[in-house]
C-alpha cells in the first residue's frame, strides 16, 4: 500500500502574526516557516504504518512556489520515500488543493491519504473532506487513533461530544488531530540521506485542474484587542470585583 501525505509549509506556530498596516495581508517576509504541525503528525502516522508493515511507500506532497523543494526535503529527511512538488506561484485554495490531490491519487493509487485536519495559516479545515467527496471515498476527520486491518481503517475521531469511532473501507482519507502521535525529530544523517531521495516536480498547470472560482480576500485586519485589565490581590477582592460586575 502507498500512503500519500499532504505536507504544507506555513508560518511557524510560534510566530506572532502581524497584519500589514494597509490591510493587504499579513507579514510573511523574513518570518520563520515550518511544516504545518498537523501535517507533521500526518507524516509521522504514515511512517509508523510503514514501520508496522502496513505500507510500502510514503509519498509527501507539497503545492507551492519553487522554493518549496527545501521544505519537502525535510519530509524526506523525516522518512518519506519520495516527494512530489506541485509547482505554482499562485496561492491555492482548498478546492484546488483537493483537485490536485485527486489527480495524484488517480496516478499513484494509494490505499490511504493522510492530511492535517487544518493548516494553521488559513485555518480552513476543508481539503481532506473535499478530496474524499471528489474521490467518492470515506473520510475520517480529526483522527486521534488509527488502526488498519482487513482492508479497512478503524479511526477514533475527536469530536465535540467525545470520542467517536468509525470504520472506513480503504482507500480512504484521514485527517489528523493533535493527539494522534508525537512526530519524530529529524536527525542530521537523515538530512544527508534525504538529498538523494526522489523528488519530482510537476507544474500545477500541467495537471489539467480547474481551479474554479476562488474566494476573494479583500481585506486583512488585526483582531480587536482585549486590553489588560486590573489585578486584584486576593480571593476576597476577586469575589468583590466579580460581584460588582454582576457575574456572581
Amino acid at each position, binding site marked *: 500500500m502507498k500512503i500519500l501525505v499532504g505536507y504544507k509549509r506555513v508560518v511557524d506556530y510560534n510566530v506572532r502574526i502581524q*497584519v500589514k498596516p494597509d490591510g493587504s495581508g*499579513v507579514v510573511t517576509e523574513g518570518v520563520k516557516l515550518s511544516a504545518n504541525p498537523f501535517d507533521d503528525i500526518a507524516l509521522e502516522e504514515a511512517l509508523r504504518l510503514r514501520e508496522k508493515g502496513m505500507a510500502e511507500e510514503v509519498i509527501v506532497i507539497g503545492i507551492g512556489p519553487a522554493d518549496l523543494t527545501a521544505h519537502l526535503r525535510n519530509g524526506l529527511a523525516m522518512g518519506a520515500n519520495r516527494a512530489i512538488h506541485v509547482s505554482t506561484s499562485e496561492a491555492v485554495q482548498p478546492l484546488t488543493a483537493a483537485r490536485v490531490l485527486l489527480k495524484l491519487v488517480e496516478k499513484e493509487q494509494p490505499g490511504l491519504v493522510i492530511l492535517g485536519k487544518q493548516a*494553521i495559516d488559513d485555518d480552513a479545515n476543508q481539503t481532506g473532506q473535499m478530496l474524499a467527496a471528489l474521490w467518492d471515498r470515506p473520510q475520517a476527520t480529526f483522527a486521534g487513533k488509527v488502526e488498519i486491518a482487513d482492508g479497512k481503517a478503524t479511526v477514533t475521531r475527536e469530536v465535540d461530544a467525545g470520542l467517536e469511532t468509525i470504520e472506513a*473501507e480503504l482507500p480512504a482519507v484521514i485527517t489528523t488531530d493533535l493527539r494522534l502521535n508525537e512526530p519524530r525529530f529529524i536527525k542530521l544523517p537523515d538530512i544527508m540521506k534525504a538529498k538523494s531521495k526522489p523528488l519530482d516536480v510537476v507544474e500545477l498547470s500541467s495537471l489539467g485542474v480547474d481551479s474554479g472560482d476562488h474566494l476573494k480576500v479583500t481585506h486583512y485586519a488585526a483582531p480587536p484587542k482585549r486590553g489588560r485589565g486590573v489585578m486584584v490581590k486576593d480571593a476576597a477582592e476577586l469575589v468583590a470585583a466579580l460581584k460588582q460586575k454582576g457575574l*456572581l
Partner: protein
Amino acid sequence: MSKILIIAEHLDGKLNLATARAVSAAAAVKPEGIDVMVLSDQPDAIATEAAAIEGVSKVLTVARTENMHALAAIVAPQVAAAAKGYSHVFAPSTTFGKDVAPRVAGLLGVNQVSDVMTVESSHVFTRPIYAGNAIVTVEAPAGQIVVATIRTASWPAAGKAASTAPVEALSLDVALPTHTRFVGLKQGKSDRPDLQSAARVVSGGRGVGSKENFDIVYKFADKIGAAVGASRAAVDAGYVPNEMQVGQTGKIIAPELYMAIGISGAIQHLTGIKDAGTIVAINKDGEAPIFEVADIGLVGDLFKILPELEQALA
C-alpha cells in the same frame, strides 16, 4: 434574493443549540427564507425543536435508517441534492459542521467560507485566520452557491418563534455509500452545563498538575454552576478528556465569565476565549501571557486561592 439551507446538528434525538446560532447568521443575510434540514432515522422530535426557532421558514426532514448516525459520507450527498434552489448552505462550525460542510462544498464544486464571524452582505463575510490573529474579509463568487460554516461563538442563538414553522418530509433520490460505518461514541458523562453554551466556564491548565488535582477545579465550577474546560496542555497530559479542550483546535467559546486557572495563555488557547465577556486569570506566574488579556488577574497559588474563593462565596 437569498434562500438559505441550514444543516441541523443533533445528538440523541435532541437539537444542538449550535443550529440556532447558525440561524442567527442566516438571518443576517436577510434572506427570503431559512430552511432547516434534519437528517435522522427519527427526525420528528428534532424537527419540532427546529420549527420553534425564530426566523426559520420551514423544516425539511429526511428520515432514513442510514441517517441514524451523522457520517459525513452519508449526510453530504443528501445535503448536496437538497441544496438545489438555495443560494446558501450553512452549518455550525462544530466538529459536525466542519466534517460535513466541506464535503458538501466539494460535491457542489465550490470553495467554502469557514468560521463566519460577521455577515457583510449576501456574499461578503469576515472570518478568522492564523488562530484569530488576523480577520479577513472574503467575498464568495457571485452566481454560485455559498457553503459556509458559522463560528458559533460569534453568534447568539436565535430565540423562540411566536408560531412554529411548518415541517415537511423530503424524499431525495440519492444513493448512499456503505463504505463508512459508525462503530461507537464514547461521551463524557457530565451533569455540568454544556461547555459550548454555558454562561460561566472554569478551565484548568498544566498548572493544575494532575488528573486528581483537577477535582479542585470541578468543585469550584460546581460551586458557581460553571462548565469545565481545559487547555491543550491539560488534555495532552491526560488530566481531562479531549472534549474539554478550549482553543484553536478545540472548542471556541463565548461565556459571560471565563476563569482560567493555572493556564499560561498560549495564543492557541486565547483564540478559543477571546469572545468571552469577562476573563479572569489565576496563575502563580505573574508574567504569564494570560494576564495580557485578562480583565481581572490574580497572581498566586491556585490550590490556596480556589478554596478561599469557595469560602468567600459560602
